[in-house]
């Protein structure tokens, strides 16, 4: 560690910050004996940045030098920005010292491409390897695989990392070609399938001998940039749902495009990043993963984009008044989940609590149901007063868009879903 470290850290954190897939999550890595660190279920946020985002991992680039020129990226070679490169040992020490002070859950390492994909990937793998083997570090490691890296290196990376990711970035191949001519869907999907194969092979091995090494036990993730291209939410969410069908794909992240390279005319001029749209996509993604929605129920050719003013679940309910009101005292779990104002937690509590007797509306709100919303879509012990059948979807839509609601929608920010 040298006096230059501070400056490098600033440069390379700045360079990495637009990558949002920072959640460390999903599995447990026990500290086996006397090493350092553990990874526990859902990763812990150790701080919150001034933009309100969770800081869980040391999210950093190994270098922001890059031979490529992707239009949407601040580190593209044609940009005149401050450049820096960490040495492997420098970054390893930094990770260990931050971890020991409980600043972080682990490391999220990405890199610009120097010389060629394999040269770059090899250095990233060395960081992970040193952490695990020299420092006996059991904390979380997420490596962002370099598009075009060889199978051997991706396989090695999987042995040290908890999670690997390859970012798709642009939701359609033709637009990727336009904005990042040096990349192709193939260069992204190839490492994705290396990761998948590595994980499946390791699972197979471990069925035979329990001591066989694990491969990226927290699976893989990817990221899509939203609003840099004309791709619709329909396109984006269908892509996500296809990706989720792949055995190891754990998360798709959406990143509202921040116009970092305003001079490039291939990109739209946005006054502000499309944060509301990004939030709606996360909500829709949530519906896919936890609310048993099918993607066609959320977006379609007829409704190619999510409603920005109301959340996708409410939007679905207003498009389908015929299925409401739902009787919470006898409806199936899946139906209860469809009620606006009822989340996964409260749906489960309803199922549990109704065995003790029929639920009243005051009990429902104690359980955590947002009655202001839900009341139009349910019946409980009391007689239904005024549901979507009487109120009609259009009127409800206006009601939910009252100034107070609008304000709270804005405030909801990116973390609170429903």
């Amino acid at each position, binding site marked *: 560690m040298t006096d230059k470290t501070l400056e490098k850290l600033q440069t390379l954190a700045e360079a990495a910050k637009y990558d949002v897939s920072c959640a460390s999550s999903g599995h447990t890595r026990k500290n086996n004996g006397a090493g350092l660190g553990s990874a526990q279920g859902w990763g*812990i946020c150790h701080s919150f940045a001034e933009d309100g985002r969770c800081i869980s991992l040391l999210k950093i680039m190994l270098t922001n030098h890059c031979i490529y020129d992707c239009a949407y990226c601040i580190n593209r070679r044609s940009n005149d920005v401050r450049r820096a490169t960490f040495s492997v040992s420098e970054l390893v020490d930094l990770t260990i010292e931050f971890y*020991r002070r409980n600043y972080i859950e682990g490391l999220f390492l990405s890199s610009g491409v120097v010389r060629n994909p394999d040269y770059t990937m090899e250095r990233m793998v060395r960081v992970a390897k040193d952490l695990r083997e020299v420092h006996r570090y059991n904390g979380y490691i997420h490596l962002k695989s370099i598009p075009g890296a060889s199978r051997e290196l991706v396989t090695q990376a999987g042995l040290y990392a908890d999670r690997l990711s390859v970012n798709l970035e642009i939701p359609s191949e033709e637009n990727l070609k336009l904005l990042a001519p040096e990349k192709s869907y193939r260069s992204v999907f190839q490492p994705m399938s290396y990761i998948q194969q590595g994980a499946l092979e390791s699972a197979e091995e471990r069925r035979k001998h329990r001591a066989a090494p694990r491969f990226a036990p927290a699976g893989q993730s990817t990221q899509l940039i939203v609003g840099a291209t004309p791709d619709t939410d329909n396109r984006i969410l269908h892509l996500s749902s296809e990706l989720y069908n792949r055995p190891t794909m754990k998360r798709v992240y959406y990143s509202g495009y921040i116009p970092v390279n305003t001079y490039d005319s291939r990109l739209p001029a946005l006054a502000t990043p499309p944060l509301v749209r990004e939030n709606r996509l996360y909500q829709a993604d949530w519906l896919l993963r936890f609310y048993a929605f099918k993607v066609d129920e959320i977006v379609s050719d007829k409704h190619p984009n999510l409603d920005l003013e109301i959340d996708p679940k409410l939007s679905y309910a207003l498009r389908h008044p015929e299925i409401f009101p739902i009787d919470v005292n006898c409806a199936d779990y899946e139906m209860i989940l469809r009620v606006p104002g009822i989340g996964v937690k409260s749906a489960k509590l309803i199922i549990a609590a109704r065995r003790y007797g029929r639920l009243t509306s005051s009990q429902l709100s104690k359980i955590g149901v947002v009655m202001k919303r839900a009341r139009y879509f349910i019946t409980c012990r009391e007689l239904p007063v005024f549901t979507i059948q009487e109120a009609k979807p259009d009127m409800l839509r206006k009601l939910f868009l009252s100034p107070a609601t609008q304000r709270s929608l804005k405030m909801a920010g990116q973390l609170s879903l429903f």
Partner: protein
Amino acid sequence: MYIYRYDSTFQGLLTLVFDAYSRKAFPDHIMRESDVSLFDGDIRTVVTDNVRAQRVWNGLRKKISPSACRMLYVVWLSELHDVEMLVFRYIRKAFAGERSPELNFGDADVLETSKIYRKVAREAERMRMFVRFQKTADGIFFAPIEPLYNVLPLVVDFFTDRFADQLWVVYDIKRNYGLYYDLHKTTEIVFTQLDFDFSTGRLHDAQAAEDEKRFQNLWKSYFKSIAIKERANPRLHRQLLPKRFWRFLPEKQ
């Protein structure tokens, strides 16, 4: 009216339950050791008896799930006013009914218990999040904390597992006791003299390891660099990172 006093340990509270059942005299009020009496009547002081406490606990485990048992302990750790009575009423409901009351959220006590549980669990989670170790000149990683509830017992395992190859102390400066890990096991410690700057939560320069300041500065500048200015959201920031933690966080100094 029955008033009980116990020694402010969980075993003591369980012994109290045993006592109340065997006397068939259920408390109207339960006092902690340190509480000043506001009542003139007789106060029954319970002497903690681990065997009796264990019997109550075993009985409870036959009636309610392990997670509900743990919940009662966690709720008791809140040290909230009259929380003992709440725990007591819950236990009575558990012993009285055929079915465990734990999911009966129509019941006010059950609901209150689960609410307090969530608050205490959240505070424990915040310790896992916001504890910041400072390395001392003797190579011990030291973290002062000031939690709303008595959550140290809930985070022992987490810190012991995670920081297994370093010496560390997590110290509750409000309740004046802490945890010390000596590379083999974690024990409770009480400092008779705690010499550090309470107002800033910082070690004095002379106590800190030579490179401590440097890593705090590195972390601080990382924290600054990682925020996206175009997305600044001070309200959300304050909501997620409550002010009461700031003095312990190098990034907020």
